[in-house]
């Protein structure tokens, strides 16, 4: 009975993760989450069902597509943009930045790109594949504004999700390592990285999880029925 109940709980967790993935399928830079389950045994014999060992993001590359915004940047390769908000440092692959009033580049939920700010007199901005940011003003073209550097982690799977596309470092993920784009990693200006969620696959996973949930419910029912019979043994 408890094995089946743990199976139902596991499938419910699974459904939540898949539903969350689907909800974010259109969010630039979103990374699909995956829940993991292992079987639980006591003393090598008695099976107690299953338990979740947590969920982690799957950092496979999403497809790059043209973004509509004036400051869209996509990462082609591994690494994260280094952002901060209210003094908290975080990391994201969502490069849909917009210029705020103070000249900083921010994502839709206010995370500021730490590397560069865009002065008010900029007419056009360009980001080279190696991360160098330049602007054109009324007087001069190609004024250097700095360079976007990225962060990589020894164990990115251990990053903590701060919701949406933003992650924070943890002791398990290891410290941030600076990556300069240009050799293995490139920046693509005017492009956005699509989420790596496959809608079709997620729909199939939902169906499978639903069926598995139902099957586990049958197990609970059967165990309950058998206990009822056993309880009535003395007077039937």
């Amino acid at each position, binding site marked *: *009975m408890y*094995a*089946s109940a*743990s*199976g139902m709980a*596991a*499938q419910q967790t*699974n459904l939540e993760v898949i539903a969350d993935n689907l909800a974010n399928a259109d969010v630039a830079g979103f990374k699909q989450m995956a829940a*993991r*389950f*292992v*079987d639980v045994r006591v003393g090598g*014999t008695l*099976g*107690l*069902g*299953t338990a979740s*060992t*947590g969920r*982690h993001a*799957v950092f*496979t590359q999403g497809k790059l597509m043209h973004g509509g915004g004036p400051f869209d940047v996509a990462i082609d390769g*591994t690494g994260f943009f280094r952002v901060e908000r209210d003094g908290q440092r975080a990391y994201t692959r969502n490069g849909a930045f917009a210029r705020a009033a103070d000249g900083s580049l921010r994502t839709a939920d206010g995370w500021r790109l730490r590397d560069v700010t865009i002065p008010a007199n900029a007419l056009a901005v360009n980001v080279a594949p190696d991360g160098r940011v330049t602007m054109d003003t009324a007087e001069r073209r190609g004024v250097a504004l700095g360079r976007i550097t990225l962060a*990589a*982690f*020894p*164990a990115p*799977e*251990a990053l903590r999700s701060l919701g949406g596309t933003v992650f924070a470092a943890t*002791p*398990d*993920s*290891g*410290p941030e390592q600076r990556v300069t784009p240009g050799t293995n990693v490139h920046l693509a200006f005017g492009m956005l990285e699509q989420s790596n969620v496959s809608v079709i696959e997620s729909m199939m996973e939902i169906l499978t*999880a639903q*069926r*598995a949930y139902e*099957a*586990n419910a*049958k*197990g*609970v029912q*059967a*165990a309950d*029925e*058998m206990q009822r*019979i*056993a309880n009535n*043994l003395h007077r*039937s």
Partner: protein
Amino acid sequence: MTWMASAMHAAQAQLETATHNLANVGSDGFRRARATLTFTPAGLVAGEAPTATEGGIRETGRRFDLALLGPGAFTLDGGPARRGGGATTTRDGAFVRDRDGYLGDGSGHRLRGERGAIRVSPDATIDADGTIRDGGRIVDRLALPAGTTVRSGALESSNVDAIGETLAILTAQRSFETAQKTFVAIDEARDKAVNDVGRLK
């Protein structure tokens, strides 16, 4: 009567096996247990036997997701508390690099090769024969039985078939009922034998 009680126990054990299997329909690398029944003078005894059917292999595209094609298992160490000993085996090949660069299961247990824990860069590759290469250098090799190959970028799903387990649950439930009915029938027959046979009306 003890026979029927043992049959009911056996049905309950079969149910436990089936529900445990079913609960793990989503656990990668899980191998279902097969319920066994043995006839003994004391009655029916239910047990479990391991199965070796391979689960489906599904592509994940992550280089440290490893699927074993053929028998064998990955060896993990005992976690942070017991790095040297406490080796366990698993067929769940979803490995990740930890912050020190060692491959592990994400819960602190490190994967073991022939030379111990495996420390690699994010760009290391794993060949079909288990050889781990990192920047052109051979780092280690996974100890595998002859004939077994490794596939990088794929995982082995659980080999549980949900329909089969549901059937097993229903069968266990019905066997339990049958045993209970027989139990009651024997009880009634004895009731008659003890209380009614020889009674003078």
